[in-house]
């Protein structure tokens, strides 16, 4: 065992150790001496407490010291300000090479944490701040728990990353609050964009026995603990239903996991099975099963991809590759939006909310303009209705967003973005009109999804001020922003765009001015392969199902419906014009657009009969596997070409774009780790995209 720990410590040599500091305290009401353990890594809340081998050993020493005492009446454990603990330190996980090492990590966590539930005195977890993964599991091992009503985030994110809550979570939580509620934390929330719950919910679910306000949370928790120690308070918990309710909850979870992932990621299914068995297992059996699951999953490619993806969105997204020094950025004091359609309205709302500056919408006729402005005002009212903003803020936001038929209203704007019809001549004309009124150094941004930024700027006096600023629909949901550098775009325009992106809370990726940039190019290609198979005679349902093993958030045809057949057709035409040998224009798509069909699916989610009719034809149907293979090969080839063309700096940026702009999953790491894993990269390009484990930075 000791050698396993030593090995683990070597793998985590750069661990920021969360120390478990013990102090004797006198419990109120004469309830005796307690040991109060504080988890603290010595940094502020921006670097939360985590558990690596060093942290586990520190906690072990603290618990062992408590165990040796005969003069104490309780042990309490809490975190540093605002943070309880946010789980395992995952930095060393990609360095784990053997199943034995992986097993040792899992077992070490159990061996330490379980002692909190096996001392002679009661143990109390005082959950004062964020508690995730192993942090929440520490609390679960304690005899009792209190939670602060101010805790912003409690979760078991393991399944989201590619693990299971395997330091006791899958065993203890369902046995504490029942399988249904436990699966909400273990499965449902992680698979819903890694949702977290707040302090009051932790109490409501029965995870915490008592809740106190944050101002003197630990003091009041200790008063409560003292009364529990003295027997003046008896903690009563509802009995857990281990009958049908348990099995039903498990079956529901199984169904939901399969529906979402189609077997693409092993971790969530594994977690469900651990919960399924938890009702019949002893502690030892439950923990041993968790050890085994952890070890298997730690060695999985999906986890490596998941950790890579996590680093992409947590780290790479914060330091966009190729962004110029932010000191070059120009201050934005007023924004102009050309257009008043749906996209323009979404942009106006976002700019007003995040930049807190006046935003003027501009359109050709009063009716469209009024519609655009009233859309924004309506969205503001929705925010007000949901309690996200108060009346004053709503008044302020509405006052910020106005409309003008004349571009003269842009005269003092420093940032003007166009969101007009995707036609080069129109966009060029719009920019010329804008340039005529704005100052010589105002930035002009285009939300084009596929047109050339360079060409769009070419007719201007100051083409250096033009930058691509491509959002993804729905703007409020998808975080990606492709920032496009045209041939003449200068660093000031680019720096301003990146600084604005950050304030807009968007994930910015720098792209070269290449047709359709990154996401639309790859999605169009991917969908093109599926449509190609249909064109050749494959049943559309079969073709649509073929890529399910990737576990994408939606099927290709569903995506087509969301994007809109007309937009998709337009992008594919652009790409076909640029790269005719690789991008075809689907005649079936053309027909759908011509027929004016916006919906691919009927309300019962079957393919609309009329659309299906348009999609029929061809006499060379393919097998699902063949379609998946051709789609993946096309992706691998295209990504290689894009990297060679310098569309983005690295493969990591491609993956970040797919995750942030198309919602592609963590377990595929975007796509390049997956392409490497299944051997397609090597087969198509002669080499994988990543040498060894993929690196986000």
């Amino acid at each position, binding site marked *: 065992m000791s050698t396993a720990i030593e090995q683990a410590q070597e793998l985590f040599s750069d661990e920021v150790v969360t120390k*478990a*500091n*013990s*102090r004797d*305290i*006198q419990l*109120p009401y004469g309830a005796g001496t307690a040991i*109060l*353990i*504080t988890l*603290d890594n*010595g940094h502020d809340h921006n670097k939360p407490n985590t558990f690596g081998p060093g942290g586990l050993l520190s906690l072990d020493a603290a618990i062992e010291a408590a165990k040796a005492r005969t003069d104490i009446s309780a042990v309490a454990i*809490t975190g*540093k*300000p605002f943070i309880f603990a946010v789980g395992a330190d995952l930095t060393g996980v990609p360095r784990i090479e053997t199943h034995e090492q992986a097993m040792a990590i899992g077992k070490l966590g159990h061996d330490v944490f379980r002692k909190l539930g096996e001392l002679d005195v009661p143990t109390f977890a005082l959950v004062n701040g964020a508690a995730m993964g192993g942090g929440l599991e520490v609390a679960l091992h304690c005899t009792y728990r209190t939670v602060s009503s101010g805790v912003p985030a409690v979760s078991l994110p393991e399944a989201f990353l590619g693990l299971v809550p395997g330091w006791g979570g899958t065993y203890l939580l369902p046995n504490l609050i029942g399988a249904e509620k436990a699966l909400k934390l273990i499965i449902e929330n992680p698979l819903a964009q890694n949702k977290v719950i707040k302090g009051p919910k932790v109490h409501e679910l029965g995870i915490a026995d008592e809740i106190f*306000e944050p*101002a*003197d949370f*630990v*003091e009041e928790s*200790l008063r409560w603990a003292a009364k529990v120690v003295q027997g003046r308070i008896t903690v009563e918990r509802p009995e857990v239903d281990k009958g049908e309710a348990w099995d039903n909850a498990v079956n529901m979870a199984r169904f939901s996991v399969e529906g979402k992932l189609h077997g693409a990621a092993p971790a969530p299914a594994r977690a469900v099975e651990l919960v399924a068995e938890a009702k019949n297992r002893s502690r030892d059996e439950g923990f041993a099963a968790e050890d085994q699951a952890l070890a298997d999953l730690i060695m999985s490619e999906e986890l490596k991809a998941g950790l890579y993806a996590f680093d992409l969105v947590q780290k790479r997204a914060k330091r966009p590759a190729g962004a110029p020094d932010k000191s070059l950025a120009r201050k934005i004091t007023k924004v102009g939006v050309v257009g008043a359609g749906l996209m323009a309205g979404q942009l106006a709302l976002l700019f007003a909310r995040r930049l807190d500056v006046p935003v003027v919408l501009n359109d050709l006729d009063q009716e469209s303009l009024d519609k655009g402005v009233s859309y924004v005002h309506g969205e503001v009212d929705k925010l007000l209705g949901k309690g996200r903003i108060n009346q004053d803020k709503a008044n302020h936001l509405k006052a910020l967003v106005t409309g003008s038929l004349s571009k003269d209203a842009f005269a003092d704007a420093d940032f003007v973005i166009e969101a007009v019809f995707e036609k080069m001549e129109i966009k060029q004309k719009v920019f010329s009109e804008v340039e005529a009124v704005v100052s010589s150094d105002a930035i002009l941004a285009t939300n084009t999804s596929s047109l050339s930024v360079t060409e769009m700027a070419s007719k201007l006096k100051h083409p250096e001020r033009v930058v691509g600023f491509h959002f993804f629909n729905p703007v409020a949901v998808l975080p990606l922003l492709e920032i496009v550098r045209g041939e003449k775009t200068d660093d000031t325009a680019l720096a301003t765009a990146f600084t604005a992106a950050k304030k807009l809370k968007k994930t910015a990726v720098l792209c070269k001015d290449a047709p359709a940039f990154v996401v639309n190019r790859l999605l169009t290609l991917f969908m093109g392969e599926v449509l190609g198979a249909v064109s050749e005679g494959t049943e559309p349902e079969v073709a649509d199902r073929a890529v399910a093993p990737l576990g994408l958030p939606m099927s290709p045809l569903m995506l087509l419906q969301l994007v809109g057949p007309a937009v998709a057709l337009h992008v594919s035409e652009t790409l076909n014009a640029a790269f005719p040998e690789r991008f075809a224009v689907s005649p079936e798509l053309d027909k759908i657009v011509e027929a004016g069909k916006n919906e691919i699916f009927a309300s019962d989610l079957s393919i609309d009969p009329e659309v299906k009719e348009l999609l029929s034809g061809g006499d060379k149907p393919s097998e699902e596997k063949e379609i998946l293979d051709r789609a993946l090969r096309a992706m691998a080839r295209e990504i290689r070409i894009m990297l060679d063309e310098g569309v983005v700096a690295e493969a990591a940026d491609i993956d970040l774009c797919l995750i942030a702009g198309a919602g592609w999953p963590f377990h595929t790491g975007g796509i390049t780790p997956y392409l490497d894993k299944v051997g397609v990269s090597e087969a198509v390009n002669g080499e994988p995209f990543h040498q060894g484990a993929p690196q986000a930075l």
Partner: protein
Amino acid sequence: MPRTARDVVFVDGVRTPFGKSGKGLYAETRADDLIVRVIRELMRRNPGLPPERVDEVAIAATTQIGDQGLTIGRSAAILAGLPRSVPGYAIDRMCAGALTAVTTSGAGISFGAYDVAIAGGVEHMGRHPMGEGVDPNPRFLSEKLVDPDALVMGNTAENLHDRFPSITKERADAYAVRSQEKVAKAYADGNLQPDLVEVLVRSIEEGYGLATEDEPPRPGTTMESLAGLKTPFRSHGNVTPGNAAGLNDGATGAIMAAEDVAEEMGLKGRMRLVDFSFAGVEPEVMGVGPVPATEKLFARQGISIDDVGLIEINEAFAVQVLAFLEHFGIADDDARVNPWGGAIALGHPLASSGVRLMMQLARQFEQRPDVRYGLTTMCVGMGMGGTVLWENTNYEGGK
């Protein structure tokens, strides 16, 4: 419009355990967190008081910088979770800050402008040493408005020994030893603990702890142990760390209310505010301040020291207490004076001390229904004294 003054009562007091500044209990704990804990505990102990009925939160701090700045009364009210409708303000009369918070809010209650107020003080002398950020006007010295000693409290205490040559270092030390003994006994008798609220204390290195008792007392202090201490303010002087209060951190708070309102809420007024008085003296002998302040009050009320059964006098320095006692002809060890000891043992977190005197007087009143009147009095930097006269609501002598 004719106006009738209302009777004002001290309902309840709570304080944090006092800590030693520097490396003591609260070295890594914020000052505002201390006063917030006090306010929350006051509200918790008096559930009859609806939070929205608090009309004012008057919190004193001498050094109103950083976590003691930002209009501490208002910010503490918000941090304590009182309704937004409850206002608050910061107050400063150096050591008599909390005492002034009580008299000012008490006067407002009597006037009819408030029904209920929270009055208190906080001083974290570790985070905010006395004199932090001060910028005395050069005219003080150029025009000899004050003696240079006036700004160094220890020097004013040495000056007091000069003015009262009969008060020797031995008398001061003997007084200090008794203060320590009385505090030790009061702790043993459980007299001080009821007003304390335990406080979570932060230490990055050691982890959180829980402050449950005062840190400054040194039980077992003897004349011998005091004899050898240095006299930092004057070579071969009289004032030592042993016969003066230390540098301390702590917070106190009290609920003040109109007597009829308190009754309506089911709150017991533990003592009644009779009168208060402040007076100025030469800043270089600020310790003598309680004498004219008390005389002024006695003259107005037509009473004398003989009418007062209990005296809680702040012990910034033993010499300053002895100067007061000598003036009024009271023995150094008179049982009426600081029966449970004082600041020399318990500590003196400047602006918070006034309310500590009051909460102790209120508890003593409960034990002493034979006593009708008690005083709380203290000397104040820049040459002042402040005295508050209280009437025991438990007084039975008249029946």
